[in-house]
């Protein structure tokens, strides 16, 4: 498969999953802001922080604005300057998909293009003012439709593998960040307030689309330890760190079965090391260990992503010009 196309496939996966994830986070945080007895700052600040956009946000609106739900939502939904806003992700997903249309099925392309046309059109902005949750729900439904079409209408070979690798690596990062974000909230909140704590853990599970799955595993018993282990190491839950790292490892071994390039070997080794580390180090972590642990995961994943892109250029000379679709 052509290296540039592999790279772009990888990024289509990442952008789609990122758009879905951002929409889901906004939805969950809105619900939290209505229900739980948290200050506006405690609700919205973590959302900006885990997206990695706090410096940019405070430069544009001032650090205090991070407690203003409307500003944060507008920034995370519509801002073209914010590279991880839904708008940026949807636009990049569509632009990148357009550049590799020939390897996507018509259904995938059309679903992606329709999402783009709808989101950029008047209908979505009007809806945002009237029924915001519906906009987020629609973004999620559309991105999930795209990802479902990837698995049900594309050939299960190299282009889909690269696309799905992008989805999985994006997801590891997202789950780690969401977990970290709730950890921040909890440390800010009244630790003795049992109802609030439970509300936060439940919202965390919802933010990871893992509420029902968690309940089935734990029969309704919600505790910090149980939620954290579930999201980190439940191998049957498709958004847990371990599920994603393990699947990503499988995909990488399928893409590069034999003697691959240095980049590919490096990527596979790093991924295997991270996978082993998660199994070994993350069994029932103490509250103070959670943040460093998740930081380690996020850092390692970004190194894996770099190695993957290096691996994509193959055993030949590297590309003469940087044609990577990466925008952030």
């Amino acid at each position: 498969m052509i290296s540039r196309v592999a790279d772009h496939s990888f990024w289509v996966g990442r952008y789609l999953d990122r758009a879905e994830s951002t929409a889901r986070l906004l939805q969950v945080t809105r619900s939290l802001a209505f229900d739980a007895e948290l200050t506006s700052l405690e609700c919205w600040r973590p959302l900006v922080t885990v997206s990695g956009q706090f410096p940019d946000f405070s430069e544009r609106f001032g650090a205090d604005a991070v407690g203003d739900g409307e500003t944060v939502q507008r920034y995370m939904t519509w801002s073209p300057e914010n590279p991880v806003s839904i708008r940026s992700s949807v636009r990049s997903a569509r632009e990148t998909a357009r550049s590799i249309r020939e390897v996507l099925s018509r259904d995938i392309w059309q679903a992606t293009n329709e999402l783009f046309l709808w989101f950029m059109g008047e209908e979505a902005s009007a809806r945002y003012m009237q029924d915001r949750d519906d906009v987020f729900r629609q973004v999620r439904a559309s991105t999930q439709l795209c990802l479902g079409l990837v698995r049900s209408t594309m050939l299960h070979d190299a282009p889909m593998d690269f696309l799905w690798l992008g989805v999985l690596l994006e997801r590891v990062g997202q789950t780690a960040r969401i977990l970290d974000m709730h950890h921040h909230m909890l440390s800010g909140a009244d630790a003795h307030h049992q109802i609030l704590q439970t509300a936060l853990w439940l919202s965390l599970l919802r933010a990871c689309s893992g509420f029902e799955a968690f309940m089935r595993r734990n029969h309704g018993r919600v505790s910090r330890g149980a939620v954290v282990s579930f999201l980190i190491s439940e191998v049957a839950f498709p958004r847990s760190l371990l599920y994603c790292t393990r699947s990503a490892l499988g995909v990488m071994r399928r893409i590069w079965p034999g003697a691959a390039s240095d980049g590919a070997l490096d990527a596979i080794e790093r991924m295997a090391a991270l996978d082993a580390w998660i199994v070994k180090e993350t069994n029932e972590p103490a509250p103070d260990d959670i943040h460093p642990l998740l930081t380690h995961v996020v850092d390692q994943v970004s190194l894996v992503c770099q190695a993957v892109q290096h691996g994509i250029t193959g055993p030949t000379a590297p590309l003469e010009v940087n044609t990577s679709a990466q925008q952030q």
Partner: protein
Amino acid sequence: MIVVTLRSPHGVRETLAVNCIPVIPSLLDGYKPIPGTYDEMVDVEGKPRAHARTAADLLRNLTGDEFARCQSLAELALAQQGVTFSVYSDQRGSEKVMPVCLVPRVISAAEWVQTEKGLVQRLRALQMFLDDVYGEQRSVREGIIPANLIEQSRQYIPKLRGLRPAGGIRIHIAGVDLIRDPAGTLRVLEDNLRTPSGVSYVLENRTVTKRVFQHAMNQSGVRRVDEYPTQLAETLRSVSPRDPETATPVVLTPGPFNSAYFEHSFLARSMGLELVEATDLFVDGNVVFVRTTEGPRRVDVIYRRTDDAYLDPEFFRPDSLLGVRGLMRAYAAGQVALVNAPGNGVADDKATYAYVPDLIRFFLSEEPILQQVRTYVCARKDDCQYVIEHLGELVVKAVDEAGGYGMLMGPQSTAAEREEFRGRILADPRRYIAQPRIELSTSPTWIADKRCLEPRRVDLRPFILSRPSGIWVLPGGLTRVALREGSYVVNSSQGGGSKDTWVEATR
């Protein structure tokens, strides 16, 4: 009853039932052709022509409201599928949906047989002419075409003389623009022998019309167009320097910001070939490779949708970074086929056009089947004098421009524009030709803001594929329509749209 089902964005499926029992007032009522102009659907009295009867009945049975619904659903479908082109004058990113008018343009079976013969004849002669230009130049020595016309053509590449391309074919894909005069005769307006575009719209338009007018299409027996990608893939494989069965053809695009990117992607996708950009390719030891995740893979045939000048910086523009370094070396060594061959521009030059009937007689010893348009070549002294004196009646064109650019429409021009062209022609007569303005034929065309049909001018671009075993012509081709009232310019970059072209099946 026709049922139309299309999806609206993020909504439920909209189902539209179109009532086929005659309803008054119908769409064709009140449709009047322009006096002195041939109309493709109706005769001077407004009666449908025999071969267009099914299409005309279809319109008769629709009211303006019903048609408007069909039209807007079709436009929505095209937008959702991303059937777009980019505009040259825009820097990047401005994509537009190719405007489409759902009223089809119909060609009779008998006329098509004759047209197809004429196109095959023309392509055979042009191919022989190119072989000759890059070979012995017999046609020059024997005075059929002036030597300076070739030497001064910007598209002529002297370095390629003596080189026979892999597979022996030079014009694998041609688009020949035809227009119809008021007497009803189809005439060749120009040849496109480099990278003719538009075929994807032919296929997409058909998909849309089929959905909307399924009933009528079944009845009228329209010839299918969907075998084009298979035929094209076969054409590409047929010129491979290595075993065609295992050959690797690719489609080379300048990238997503090119105006015809949709088509490049469309063709690659419908043939199941890789779509590559120049940076994906490299040359090693006169062999072309594509960079893949499994390492380099050899490429045998390149259907390139880039201009000659951007093929290979080593050969064409040492200062340029665009293109694939060494590609022309590989081509010269016969290790890769380039589709179409570089250097074809000398044959579709608008000045060469004037000599094509003579070239047909010279190379084939046959009389040309297709008529042309009277052409004044400003490189000829007498012609130049005539053009300068009659600027107000003629259409002046730069020989090497396309897309409706670099033109003077004499009858619609201002004195200042004519003065400007007078200066330009005198400064560089070789660059200009002129033709009388032909009253292009019209076709009933949906005018959205008036909610009715009005005559608009059309042309026709058939697509012709050539391979060593013979020539294949796509039934019909792209009908382009000048959507602006009174306009003669059909180019999509200048307010043109397209129509589905129905070639009546032989019974």
